[in-house]
């Protein structure tokens, strides 16, 4: 279904049952006049991979940062797991954050810790009942999932861009989140590594039945991973549909992403 130039606030009855993330009329302004989000509405259903496209500065990253409470919007509603994120207390928000994984553009690995410590750190904070052996085995399993068991003793500064993203992904996955938010997972990587990361995203979706929002400029990644795509333009949703639908869009601006 192609709903161009329309903010998709409406849902079918079937959608309502499975909607896991609902964004309603989201507004955010930075400073006095930098109005980044101007009423964004969309829904992500359980098990769905939603790709968000748009030019730099169109509000993609701001939107997903609002979902995890890193940025507080000026107006609007964000429902995740049927709870309004904006009304949650700090403790409740943290409980929700454990269920949501966030992969940062740079990987955001802790520079002062080795790969092992990066992964174990998150685990140790949330699963205090685990002993050292159990933590080690979970760390190894997470690294094995991203194909980087050999890097366990390396420091982040010794890793390549692709490896940093994979380790970042392993760290995100170690808490077994139900939702994963990817902020430009393939940016700055070569074509082969980008494809590997995209395949990894797809693999995670199939094996763990996760729901994802993927922000990307990489159309190969979008094609491979997207169940549905939304295109943001100047803080509002310009178009929505599947890859195939948007590729044939009548809107030349939307189509330009696919050329």
């Amino acid at each position, binding site marked *: 279904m192609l709903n161009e130039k329309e903010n998709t606030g409406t849902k079918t009855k079937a959608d309502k049952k499975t909607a896991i993330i609902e964004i309603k009329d989201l507004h955010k302004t930075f400073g006095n006049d930098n109005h980044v989000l101007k009423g964004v509405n969309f829904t992500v259903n359980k098990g769905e991979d939603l790709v968000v496209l748009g030019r730099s500065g169109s509000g993609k990253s701001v939107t997903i940062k609002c979902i995890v409470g*890193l940025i507080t919007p000026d107006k609007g509603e964000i429902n995740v797991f049927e709870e309004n994120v904006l009304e949650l207390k700090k403790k409740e928000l*943290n409980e929700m954050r454990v269920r949501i994984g966030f992969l*940062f553009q740079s990987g*955001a690995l*802790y520079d002062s810790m080795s790969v092992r410590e990066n992964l174990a750190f998150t685990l140790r904070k949330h699963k205090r009942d685990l002993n050292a052996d159990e933590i080690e085995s979970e760390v190894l399993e997470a690294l094995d999932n991203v194909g980087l068991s050999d890097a366990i003793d390396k420091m982040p500064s010794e890793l390549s861009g692709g490896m940093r993203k994979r380790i970042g992904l392993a760290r995100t996955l170690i808490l077994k989140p139900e939702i994963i938010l990817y902020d430009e997972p393939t940016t700055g990587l070569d074509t082969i590594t980008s494809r590997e990361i995209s395949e990894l995203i797809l693999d995670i979706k199939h094996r763990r039945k996760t729901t994802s929002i993927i922000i990307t400029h990489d159309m190969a990644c979008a094609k491979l991973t997207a169940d549905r795509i939304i295109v943001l333009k100047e803080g509002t949703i310009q178009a929505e549909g599947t890859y195939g639908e948007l590729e044939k869009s009548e809107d030349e601006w939307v189509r330009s992403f696919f050329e």
Partner: protein
Amino acid sequence: MTLNLKNTFEDVGNATLFAARFFKEVFIPPYETRQFLKQCYAIGYKSLPLVAITGFIMGLVLTLQSRPTLVKFGAESWLPGMVALSLIREIAPVITALICAGKVSSGIGAELGSMKVTEQIDAMEVSAINPYKYLVVTRILATTLMVPILVIFADAIGILGGYAGINIHGDVSFYRYITKIFQSLEFLDIIPATIKTFFFGFFIGMIGCYKGFNASNGTESVGKAANSAVVTASLTIFIIDMLAVQITDLFF
């Protein structure tokens, strides 16, 4: 001008709220003991050589500079007591705190600043780990406890430096030198001077953390955070010292 003044007041307000959060978070479990000990090691133990060298030089130079004047008045025997008093009451706390502002506060500012701009602090936040508790509380606690210890260490090394200075021109036994110092020292010389070092330590850590934690995006802001941390912490040390001396003067 008005805008600058507004920004300054805004900054002071934000720093106050940042510091107030420390007192709220420090008592709430879970306690980050491991990270706290790691910071004590990095801030305290690793600053020992620097503090030792400067402490020794302070004692030595102070002795050599004061000696001619005291000799003129025939009061050379007051030299050990005078050097020890000057070191313990004023010079060692302020100089050590300034060294810590340069080494520790800027280090914290740069480290947290770079963590901020590379989204590592955000990564902690979204992993439901309290970055303030893990990064800020541990560092402020460590500086608050380590700076007084470093100052006491600098006092001791400074007194040794004074002994070396006296023996360049004369021959005084170490026992006699120490006895002279203890004869002229009172508890009231030591206690207020030690209390103010806790404040120095607190502000050194707090300012470094505040500047780093609030670095805006971009690598340029990391340098700015480190630089600003040193300048603000150094200025704050002098202001606290002035207040501490006034209060000590009123009560003791």
